[in-house]
């Protein structure tokens, strides 16, 4: 009896510790979010979002950074989405199963394991210097695009894999070619899941700093870029600058909180959107 009591007590203790540690993680996250939201919310206004920084970045808004990040998102998507999706299609639909697919998958995994600063170095060597794009939206977008390729490829592959072969066979049976089958049956069915992956990759791209440090990001550039060969500001880099350098750290603090809040909002929106899309289509499939 004594023994079973001890067993119960140990279990209670262990479960207590385990759940405490888990909820501590949640607490830290909440603390971080609340901290930034509380301090940042007062800063956010239409003016903050729609004007350029002034007074050596101690005043004004963050419009150029928002626009810059937007350009980088669009630029990297224009590169990574088509290539990534095509790559995913090749892996699941065309490549002979076995060694080759495993090799490609390994390469994709390895690519996703490379630290973002190494992408920065690579982008600088190839796009900025070798191809002569200079520090530009183009160079930054390509670098970020490469960084987001693995996410796009992986979600495309998984989404296609989830489609039962019976649908493909049904299409072939009607005389459709492989490409028609992919274009008219497989891909549309996989689209919701692919979209989730694309959205998540946008989230990743919008928050990356290291890859654009030397390929694109401008320290301070109040006017908006007018070509892809211009530099631009970007939200994450702007937050870094506001937090660590600049003319007056104290005066920059509120703007930094505001910028951090905008960044976090993007991440939250992206995550929620991805979840909603997943849920929405999951329900739809169930109903059919």
């Amino acid at each position, binding site marked *: 009896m004594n023994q079973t009591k001890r067993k119960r007590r*140990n*279990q209670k203790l*262990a*479960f207590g510790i*385990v*759940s405490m*540690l*888990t909820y501590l*993680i949640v607490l830290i*996250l909440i603390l*971080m979010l609340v*901290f930034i939201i509380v301090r940042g919310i007062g800063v956010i206004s239409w003016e903050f979002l729609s004007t350029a920084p002034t007074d050596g970045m101690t005043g004004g808004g963050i419009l150029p950074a928002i626009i810059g990040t937007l350009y980088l998102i669009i630029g990297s998507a224009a590169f990574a989405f088509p290539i*990534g999706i*095509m*790559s995913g*299609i*090749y892996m699941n639909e*065309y*490549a002979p199963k076995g060694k080759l697919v495993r*090799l*490609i998958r*390994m*390469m*994709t*995994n*390895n*690519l996703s*394991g*490379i*630290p*973002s*600063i*190494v992408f*920065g*170095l*690579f982008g600088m*060597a*190839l796009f900025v210097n070798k191809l002569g794009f200079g520090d530009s939206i183009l160079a930054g977008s390509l670098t970020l695009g490469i960084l987001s390729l*693995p996410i796009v490829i992986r979600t495309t592959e998984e989404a296609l894999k989830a489609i039962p072969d019976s649908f493909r066979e049904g299409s072939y049976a009607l005389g459709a*070619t492989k*490409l028609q089958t992919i274009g008219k049956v497989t891909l549309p069915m996989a689209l919701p899941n692919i979209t989730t992956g694309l959205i*998540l990759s946008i989230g*990743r791209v919008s928050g*990356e*700093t*290291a890859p654009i*440090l*030397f390929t694109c990001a401008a320290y301070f550039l109040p006017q908006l870029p007018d070509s892809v060969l211009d530099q631009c500001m970007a939200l*994450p880099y702007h*937050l*870094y600058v506001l*937090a*660590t350098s600049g003319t007056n750290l104290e005066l920059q603090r509120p703007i930094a909180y505001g910028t*951090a809040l905008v*960044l976090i909002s993007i*991440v*939250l929106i*992206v*995550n929620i959107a991805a*979840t909603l899309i997943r849920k929405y289509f999951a329900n739809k499939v169930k109903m059919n």
Partner: protein
Amino acid sequence: MKRFIEKIIQGMLTVSGFVTSIVILLIVLFLFTEGAGLFSKPKVEDGYEIVLNKKNDINTLSAEQIKDMFDDKITNWNEVGGKNQDIVLFRLNDITNYFAEEELGEQLEHVPAKISELISQHEEIIGFIPQEYIKNDFAGKRLDMGNIKFKDVFFGKEWIPTATPISFFGILPLITGTLWVSLVAILIALPFGVAAAIYLAEIANHKIRDILKPVIELLSGIPSVVYGFFGLIVIVPLVQNIFHLPVGETGLTGSIVLAIMALPTIITVSEDAMRNCPRSMREASLALGGSKWQTIFKIVIPYSASGITSAIVLGIGRAVGETMAVLMVTGNSAIIATGILQPLRTIPATIAAELGEAPDGGVHYQALFLLGIILFLITQIINSSVEYVSAKNKL
């Protein structure tokens, strides 16, 4: 025609299929061509030479000795095995101390001759002089310092990338900094990460799990600058106050931030591993009167040990490569760290902090690319080994 188009599209798909492989090859190619160039660069600042008087018995000097001379730490030749003479330093801009402006000529055309003359007259002099001013009839002794060597980099204890006359690219301080920060980060993250994995895989019911999983995903979605910012504002003062330090930007601060950032990886991978523990094993343990906790501790955790190890290794990989957050909170001092409560500097933070100032194609630039190679290799080794182990486990 239709078939032709299909063929083209199929070709495009095939090429896209190999895009990641191509990118990795390109990354390797570019990092290595830039980084390996470092070893064909002279130790002394490019375009300069170290010269002595011909009568000086010294024929070789180490990079450290030269640095100490120019830093006034070595002031007499006998300290390096020479005569008992005070060392006289000579840099190009010191020339006006010896000659009037007229003597140097209108176009400074007499400078080479004057330098030659000066060096040959002063037995105790050591000069650091641009190569363009050293002509064939130079009357001094030119020290051949040789190129930067492998061991100067990999066993070098000093990282002083922009010093004259000699820069030091010893990566030991950066390696130790990276190791300190990453390992301590994992030590901090491990109990939390494994606990959360246990909680999610074994204890929590569906509803709680459905709430907690997205929360953890969110944790991995937050940009690293935001972590860095939070660390700077909240954790830096916290560490400073708790340990009564002069500054709060220390290795530990970086470790704490990194620990939070590595959590999602550790949790997800360990949880998956625990879920893979077959139900029959759990049931057997419970049927023998084992409590739920005993079953977790004695059956599930040992069973998923290799998965949990992968999680730790992947977590280390993330920590090693993380740049911005670490850059913002670790204080970035490039001395070999002997403890976690000092400012220290990691490899990625070094690249991020210095690449902007390093002239393209120069020694410093190449040294930073070399750091990139090291980082690349570390993370590739980590990834491949994890993949190898998990592939083996699946068989």
